[in-house]
């Protein structure tokens, strides 16, 4: 009993060391830009870099579009599947898992073959088109997380009866979707959104191969050419992820406080 407890603590300690030592090391290194004293110079240099600002902004924008269009795709799909095609749920779940199984590089090469400037649908022919393709590929990447979180939120409400209750009160489907369903799966939408945000901010492959000025490729570029800034960036990237996860926790905490007894 005692021994196994000690062993558990030992395992946890190893995990913590494995995880935190590099992080602390990185953080420490990022503070050493000024000779002989700890400072935030590296961070200052990063934040004042025009390229940082533009790529960060670009990725934020892409994340926003990904979340909006992803949710407009995922929520009605999950809703429809629950309502009308419950027997299809395993199939849809499997499909949404595909992006986890297929490497991003394969997906993006597929896209490039399909949508290159000399194809039927030349997405890559213009900057707008390429951005659109980038958003679409981000949607693909975040699909497993978005679908799952929305579907879980839907399990908590009785989608079918709520739909019928709205229908018999005269509602048509846009009203049902946006006034009765969306607000009740908001917790799922938000948690999906935060994960998506974290994924998009750090994504490299898609943005690099589509040659868009996103934050991921910028991280790589800085990492290859500077000394202290990459460490500062790594810490910043971590902070973003943790911030997203923190918000996610907050959302799920709040949605637990107000359980839907529909």
């Amino acid at each position, binding site marked *: 009993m005692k021994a196994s407890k000690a062993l558990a603590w030992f395992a946890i300690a190893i995990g913590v060391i494995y995880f935190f030592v590099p992080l602390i090391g990185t953080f420490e290194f990022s503070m050493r830009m000024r000779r002989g004293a700890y400072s935030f110079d590296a961070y200052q240099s990063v934040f004042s870099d025009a390229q940082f600002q533009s790529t960060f902004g670009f990725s934020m924008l892409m994340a926003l579009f990904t979340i909006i269009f992803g949710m407009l795709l995922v929520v009605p799909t999950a809703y429809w599947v629950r309502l009308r095609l419950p027997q299809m749920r395993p199939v849809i779940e499997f499909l949404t898992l595909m992006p986890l199984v297929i490497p991003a590089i394969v997906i993006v090469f597929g896209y490039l073959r399909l949508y290159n400037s000399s194809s039927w649908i030349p997405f890559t022919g213009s900057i707008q088109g390429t951005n659109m393709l980038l958003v679409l590929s981000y949607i693909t990447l975040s699909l497993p997380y978005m679908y799952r979180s929305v579907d879980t939120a839907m399990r908590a409400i009785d989608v079918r009866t709520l739909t019928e209750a709205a229908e018999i009160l005269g509602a048509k489907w846009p009203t049902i979707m946006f006034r009765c369903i969306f607000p*009740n799966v908001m917790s799922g939408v938000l948690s999906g959104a935060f994960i998506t945000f974290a994924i998009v901010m750090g994504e490299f492959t898609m943005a690099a191969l589509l040659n868009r000025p996103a934050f991921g490729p910028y991280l790589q570029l800085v990492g290859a050419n500077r000394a202290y800034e990459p460490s500062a960036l790594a810490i910043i990237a971590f902070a973003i992820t943790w911030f997203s996860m923190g918000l996610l926790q907050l959302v799920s905490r709040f949605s637990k406080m107000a359980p839907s*007894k529909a």
Partner: protein
Amino acid sequence: MSFLVLEHIKKSFGQTQVVKDFNMSIEKGEFVSFLGPSGCGKTTVLRMIAGFENPSDGAISINGKNQNKLKTNQRNIGMVFQAYALFPNMNVFDNVAFGLKIAGMNKADIDKRVKEMLKLISLDHLADRYPYQMSGGQQQRVALARALAPKPQVLLLDEPLSALDAKIRVSLREEIRQIQRQLGITTVFVTHDQEEALSISDRIVVMNAGRADQIGAPSEIYNRPATRFVASFVGTLNMIDATVADPAANTVKVGENTVKLKESIGALKGGDKISIALRPEAGSLSESAKGDTSITGTVVLSHFLGSVIRTKIDVGGNLISFDMFNSPDTVQPQPGETVTLRFNASDFLIVRD
């Protein structure tokens, strides 16, 4: 022409026919209950009235207007669900206002109507509450107000009380009935609880395997069940094996006893087997009780249940359950005792299968 008419309604899911030739005419302002065991098709008929399911065959009309082609959201029907189905993201006020907003009512009128409805269900003080902040009974009353707010032509309730505990169930059913009377709204109420159906309905439809076995007022259903199924489903019933004694005199033999029936058995011959039914509460043990016929048997069991004493009496191999009201000077029959029960001829029912 009746207000809500169901004609030759049939419904199949795949190969199985769930509703088989269902006919019913409901008058304006009437309160009708569908009563029947689980799976007999009550909900399915209700859902066809609501437009959630399309009948495989037959016609549904409300106020003379055929509804078959109308979608649910075009029918102007109110419905209360077993699981309340309030919108969790809206407070009480917004839930009740939902149908009114969709109907395009202006804000002032909505405000007035919602307040009126909340007063009707005596929850005007809870307008700002969210569904999860209320008890089941309160939620169901809000659901009722929400259904009634847009002044529907017909109100449908699918086992609205079965998720509530016993006390609330009784008080809420009376409240529903009282509101229904007040508004004069044509109502269909689905339940599998016979007491519920008997206590609040103008008429009851007893359903059995997708068909209406009997349609009638509660007293009619209880006192003159048309089929063996109705007789056994509504209330409890003794089924007694008897032999026809004299068809001309309407008498049968139960064990050694000759029993006179009210209903004619002239079509049968002496010696024919016949099943007769008897309510446990019919008959009397008292010597002074009037009655045109009697049965003598041996007490097998006797249970004291408070207001009622339940006795099982063996009469020529038939075990007859007999209930009598308790009073301080009632003598409880003891096992082994021979007793004579006095009946009216009309207490015995002949039911067809």
